[in-house]
């Protein structure tokens, strides 16, 4: 089984939320050194910390723990140039699909 790099997932969420490490630590109620160690992979993240980071970044717990299954099954069609890997756009759209999936799970109806 491939180990999931939770630190990297948290880092992606932090960047997408436009938060500095300090701002995220504060919003999640974790000390900045602890957050920094979680992101670098020196220390594991406890579930309450992940829940707090989820609330503070707007990413779902499933996304932060790599438990989201959407990424494994999505299909795509793209337009890029110069061999671009489309990393940023791919991450953004995956986030939309994961969030959409989560809102489904939470039985939040579509309003429009």
């Amino acid at each position, binding site marked *: 089984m491939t180990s999931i790099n939770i630190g990297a997932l948290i880092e992606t969420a932090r960047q*997408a*939320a*436009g938060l500095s490490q300090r701002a995220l630590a504060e*919003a999640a109620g974790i000390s900045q050194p602890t957050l920094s160690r979680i992101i670098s992979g020196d220390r594991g993240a406890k579930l309450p910390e992940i829940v707090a980071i989820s*609330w*503070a*970044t*707007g*990413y779902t717990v499933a996304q932060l723990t790599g438990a989201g299954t*959407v*990424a494994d*099954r*999505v*299909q*795509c*069609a*793209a*337009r*890029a*140039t*110069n*061999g*671009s*890997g*489309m*990393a*940023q*756009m*791919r991450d*953004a*759209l*995956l*986030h*939309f*699909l994961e*969030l*959409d*999936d*989560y*809102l*489904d799970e*939470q039985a*939040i*109806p*579509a*309003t*429009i």
Partner: protein
Amino acid sequence: MNAESEGRVAAERFRQEHRLGQQPLGDLVTLIEQSTGIDVAVLDVGPDEHGLTMRDPRRGAVFIGVARTRHPMRQRSSLAHELGHVVFADWADNTACDWSARSPTESRADVFARHLLLPLEGLTDFLAETRAVNLATLSAVVQRFLVSPQIAAIALEQAGLIDAATKGEWMSVTAPQLAARFGWSDKYQALQVDADRRRAPRRLLARAIQGYADGVVSAQTIATLRGITPDVAATELRDAGVFPARHPVSWADPGELPEVQVDLSALDDALHAIDEHRETASEP
């Protein structure tokens, strides 16, 4: 059928099914969202990432992303191109995507985009009164249908209004050049500003706001979708009368709890038995 005729037929059918007539398509993002139910986002991404469509096959959810850009005509053609992929169901596995490859499906999506944005019938109707087709005509077509001069030149040739040599010449003209020369720079700049702005996927955002009101997601979720701060998001929602739900926890007074009779004699017996066992064991 080749890419050209497949793309053209599909674009004509799309216009017909969604009752778009032969008119220019204004705000393409809203048009796609309203006519297809697909969510569209304008994203802040790298310069070579033009457009991407992602689909969750389990739930059928589809998202189209295009890049923020100062090139409004290119953004429109990227959007129409991605819509073409949806129409033709050009789905590839996420891992198998070669993002820059020029495949027949890419050409077909380009053709779809060209005919969707600039239908030949609409073009000939628009130019019915025109006697001489010149650079001012090209400018008028570009301005009206909001397409690149390249798309306009190809369509003008297909409609038999210009020859191949003129088309070749006009392929190197740019939209800002036409705007500057024919007096619609102000409009072009307004289009630039509009194309260079982030836009969150509208339906997902509306649903996330419902989730926020139900206390299922945080203000940061809304902020992350929109690329703004959670404070701004929360203030805007509060001003609109949207507040996160409070789920009060009902605490009980210990005095109201029922009396519970617990018979501890069995436990005493068991502990006593252990003590006796220890005493016996410790004897030499």
